């Protein structure tokens, strides 16, 4: 397989990259928030509504059959894409957040007072708050494992935190702030040895590198379509079939039942047991087009491309005294996410000025307030890459940072990078 991305060709597949912002070409570096969509995904949405639109699973007419087949084909495609053994263990949700909540509300209901959930200080709020709510409902305890100074998870601390009462270890596969790629197989082994299950938040991993769920050793895996070139409104939960078999449904309603009687009802088999009501049919089908697109590029090529850009930007940043990047120093140990500080300038001022240059970055707490506290910063700037970014865009961004520096420099001379 060819491992080099033809970025120039890739860029022509994304209509939004022709946009100008403040008279300048859009440089979109906020991909950890959401990625842009290729023409194929947009076309799939339009095609579905123009040709195949019907409700799924119940209808007997031609369109209903077509829509159902396409929807279920994406389930199989997703399973194959992440190395899941069976399509039935793939559940469509609204997003990663809903997938994590689904676990907390179904599997989590069996927790007892004093049971423990272990997570890390680098988690996104969506992998903290559902467990805090679960702890409130059940009396379980949430323990947070610290990171080391280099932005890597402290595995010794994790080993110490996992005990006989630990029921779940839930960790980001890749941090949305530090970019850290966590050693998930090692974590799974550690947790399983103690009899705990493992949940991985894959929102920042599946879109950017080859992921094989089987190799992670986890029991639950969650991610979102919109961060991997797909449409908003679709999330994925994978869980071990033997767990899906035993846990109760999440939401009740149409499509998730076997029979309904006024005296009581029985449930459909999974995955349908967990997909109550009309799902997001059109977006799931368009998500299939996103997976096809990534498949064609090859996830190894995607990872190598983003790794090169990360290396390029980190190398420049490490040379500039007034820039302070967070997270692992080595691009091999991180995804294409770089959070950083500009000395003496608040991230919101940075974001406003670079936006003037057409450059979209994120500034804020990135839904990771505990990590901000740990890093002792109120907020950070964040750049995050996708398949269509190139070195030229990194240069435009660096020129914009130079402008930030000159606006805020005390004596206001132009400084150069």
């Amino acid at each position: 397989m060819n491992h080099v991305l033809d970025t120039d060709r890739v860029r022509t597949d994304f209509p939004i990259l022709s946009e100008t912002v403040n008279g300048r070409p859009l440089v979109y570096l906020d991909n950890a928030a959401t990625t842009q969509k290729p023409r194929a995904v947009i076309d799939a949405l339009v095609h579905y509504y123009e040709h195949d639109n019907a409700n799924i699973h119940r209808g007997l007419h031609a369109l209903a059959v077509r829509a159902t087949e396409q929807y279920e084909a994406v389930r199989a495609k997703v399973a194959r894409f992440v190395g899941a053994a069976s399509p039935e263990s793939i559940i469509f949700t609204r997003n990663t957040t809903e997938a994590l909540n689904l676990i907390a509300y179904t599997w989590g209901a069996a927790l007892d007072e004093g049971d423990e959930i272990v997570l890390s200080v680098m988690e996104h709020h969506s992998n903290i708050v559902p467990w805090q709510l679960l702890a409130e409902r059940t009396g379980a305890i949430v323990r947070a494992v610290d990171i080391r100074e280099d932005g890597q998870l402290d595995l010794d601390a994790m080993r110490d935190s996992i005990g006989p009462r630990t029921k779940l270890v839930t960790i980001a596969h890749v941090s949305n702030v530090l970019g850290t790629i966590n050693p998930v197989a090692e974590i799974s082994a550690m947790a399983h040895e103690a009899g705990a299950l493992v949940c991985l938040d894959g929102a920042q991993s599946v879109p950017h590198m080859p992921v094989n769920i089987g190799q992670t050793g986890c029991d639950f895996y969650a991610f979102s379509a919109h961060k991997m070139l797909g449409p908003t409104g679709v999330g994925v939960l994978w869980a071990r079939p033997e767990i899906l078999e035993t846990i109760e449904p999440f939401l009740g309603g149409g499509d998730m039942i076997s029979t309904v009687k006024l005296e009581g009802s029985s449930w459909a088999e999974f995955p349908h047991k967990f997909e109550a009501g009309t799902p997001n049919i059109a977006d799931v089908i368009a998500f299939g087009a996103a997976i096809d697109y990534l498949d064609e590029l090859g996830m190894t090529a995607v990872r190598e491309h983003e790794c090169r850009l990360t290396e390029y930007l980190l190398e420049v940043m490490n040379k500039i005294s007034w820039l302070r990047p967070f997270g692992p120093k080595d691009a091999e140990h991180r995804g294409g996410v770089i959070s950083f500080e500009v000395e003496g300038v608040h991230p919101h001022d940075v974001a406003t000025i670079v936006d003037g240059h057409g450059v979209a970055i994120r500034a804020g707490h990135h839904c990771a307030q505990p990590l901000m506290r740990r890093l002792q910063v109120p907020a950070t700037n964040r750049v995050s890459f996708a398949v269509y970014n190139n070195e030229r865009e990194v240069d435009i961004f660096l020129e914009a940072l130079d402008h930030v520096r000159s606006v805020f420099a005390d004596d206001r001379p132009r400084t150069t990078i």
Partner: protein
Amino acid sequence: MCVRCLLMTVPEPQFDELYREVILDHYRRPRNRGKLTDATAHADGANPVCGDEISLDVRLDDGRIESLAFEGVGCSISQASASLMTDRVSSTPIEEAQAVRAAFRKMLLENGTPDPSIGDLEVLEGVKKFPVRVKCALLAWNVLDRALEAQPDHKSGDDQ
């Protein structure tokens, strides 16, 4: 047109209106920063989305704001606005401070021309062209309003 050619035709974006020298000066060297040992009112406020924080001590005496001091973290606009506010409303009757607050809000939220009563605060007029930053400029004033709210004979304005 290719990216390089397009960039050559577009002038560098200007931020002189947003980041006026007076604003940057108040950001770097905030006035009335700290705590008051003799404060009679206090309030805290934050913009949860962006993390700007202001903590305000006020000494009130006989319907007047005698002095103020603030602490906080946040962007240049939020911190400079707090500094400028403390300068403008110290040694001022509460009623006048409220009128200044109303005029300041009008400038930012209703695209009003700056009323002379707001004084140096008119340097923040450029913020109105950046709608997501308006809340940064208003934070200190909302905190002041909350501090005054605790006073029995004070009628507070609305929060946003």
